């Protein structure tokens, strides 16, 4: 069912295109970088209720911004599917005998790699700005969590791209989804500070657990437990992959 060659070739195509289009790298990283620099530096000395004193705001913020980078890069991965649709390339992919789940997995692996490269660039920038350099083992575990976060959100974009045709529709809807997910996730402030009714929404946001797990491994502080976070994210990402596979099988890709 899963054809490795198909997954590999779709991944390789994404890599070739990523490294050929440098502007894409810079463009996608600008927003999180600005937030990191200005929000991070501006609130550097602020004392946040709900944060242990040993952790400064900047240390707290970095995993949040990494989560944000993953969320936005991943969610926008559907955009390249829309591009392929408009340039007709998706038809070419869909008439090949490759199984739809392999196509979905290929797209996911390509976009996930891109998201993780972006997230690691942000992590390096943070270190330059004063983030305490985590151990290599912590960085490696954080990559595992990054994979899960990217998989979850890439699928939102993929499902959307299987039913939509144009750029504008896609970016409007994806912003409507991604911004609340970002703001509710506790990337910028502790979720415990939110009023109870809104906090419920936070607990429904997959990114909440992603950011929490990233904090757990990168700064050794988390609200839930890393095991619980990873468990929730794993289940979600598998479900989302299946959903994308289903949508790609159903969709008339023209």
């Amino acid at each position, binding site marked *: 069912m899963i054809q490795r060659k198909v997954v590999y070739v779709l991944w390789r195509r994404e890599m070739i295109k990523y490294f050929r289009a440098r502007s894409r790298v810079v463009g996608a990283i600008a927003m999180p970088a600005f937030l990191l620099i200005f929000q991070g530096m501006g609130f550097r000395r602020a004392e946040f209720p709900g944060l242990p004193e040993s952790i400064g705001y900047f240390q707290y913020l970095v995993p949040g911004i990494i989560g944000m980078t993953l969320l936005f890069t991943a969610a926008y991965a559907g955009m390249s599917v829309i591009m392929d649709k408009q340039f*007709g390339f998706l038809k*070419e992919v869909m008439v090949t005998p490759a*199984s739809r789940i392999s196509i979905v997995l290929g797209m996911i692996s390509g976009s996930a790699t891109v998201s993780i490269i972006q997230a690691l660039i942000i992590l390096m920038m943070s270190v330059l700005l004063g983030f305490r350099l985590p151990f290599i083992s912590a960085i490696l575990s954080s990559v595992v969590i990054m994979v899960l976060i990217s998989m979850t959100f890439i699928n939102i974009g993929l499902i959307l791209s299987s039913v939509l045709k144009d750029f504008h529709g896609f970016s409007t809807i994806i912003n409507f989804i991604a911004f609340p997910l970002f703001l509710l996730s506790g990337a910028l402030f502790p979720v415990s500070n939110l009023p109870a009714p809104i906090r419920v929404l936070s607990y429904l946001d997959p990114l909440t657990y992603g950011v929490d797990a990233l904090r757990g491994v990168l700064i050794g502080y988390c609200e839930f437990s890393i095991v619980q976070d990873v468990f929730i994210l794993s289940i979600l990402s598998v479900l989302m992959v299946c959903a994308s596979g289903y949508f790609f099988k159903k969709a008339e890709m023209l």
Partner: protein
Amino acid sequence: MKVLFNMSAITIKGLTKKFGEFTAVDDVSFSVESGELFGLLGPNGAGKSTIINMLTTLLIPTAGDAYIAGYDLRKHPEKVRNNIGVIFQDPSLDIGLTGRENLDFHAMMYNINSDERKKRIREVLDIVGLADKADILVENYSGGMKRRLEIARGLIHYPKVLFLDEPTLGLDAQTRRTIWDYIRDLNRNYGTSVILTTHYMEEADYLCDRIAIIDHGKIIVLDTPFGLKNRLQGDRVSVTIEEDIGLIAGALREKEWVRDIVQNDRMLDVVISDHETNIPDIFQTASKLGIGISSIKISKPSLEDVFIHLTGSTIREQEGSRKTAKQDRMRRRMLR
């Protein structure tokens, strides 16, 4: 699983596709023999591309069945995909990759191993004459080069059935000729069954073993190009007249040897039988009415004449008259 005793490359039964209220393809049935070069001829929006998109598994039929290379389209789409090659009407290349990368991508999607890929890529690049341009990004290719690359790509996995949707649309005459020759060689040398859509009469006439003329989603007639032209049973006489063309057209319509008349601005296209004896009659009829004929030309009927005879208008007129129709908008929406 495999349908036994079925020698057809394609068998279609009652194929129908509706987009909301609009029926794009209406109960179409035909079959394409193995090794045949089959043409779907019709104006833009007739439903040709919709048929191709259904047969290539991109659209799901509203009703009807189809078997391609012996496999049921509905039950085994992946088997169908394995046996077909498609060259789409609109470009479908990744312009951010080189020609070779596009071909390699495609071959890998078909699970062809590395050595075989290299061999076949070289082979198809030679066929379409792009060997020296293979490592340039496709965004720098000309229209003709892109088309040739798409044809090369469609061949790389040795499909049993090749679909070509308007293969030469928008290409110059010379490139068109070259592509016709590729298609023909491929069909003859490799026995690949080919089904192509076109709205160019000369393309259908030059290439196809059999042609289905399709309009408003239905097949009007299906025959060999020779058989189609023979249907008119006669020769075409084009008469140029300076005055009162309606009068003489009316008079000629009365004659039993006149098969068909198309009246243009100052030209009358008449399809007649036995032109040797009947052309003098045309002159007599004109002089009786006091009308002068300024020139007359005899030719064999073309496919275009057959088309006019069967549909009542030229392929171009049909396109024009539909510009305003609501249907046209529907068609364009689905053709995108």
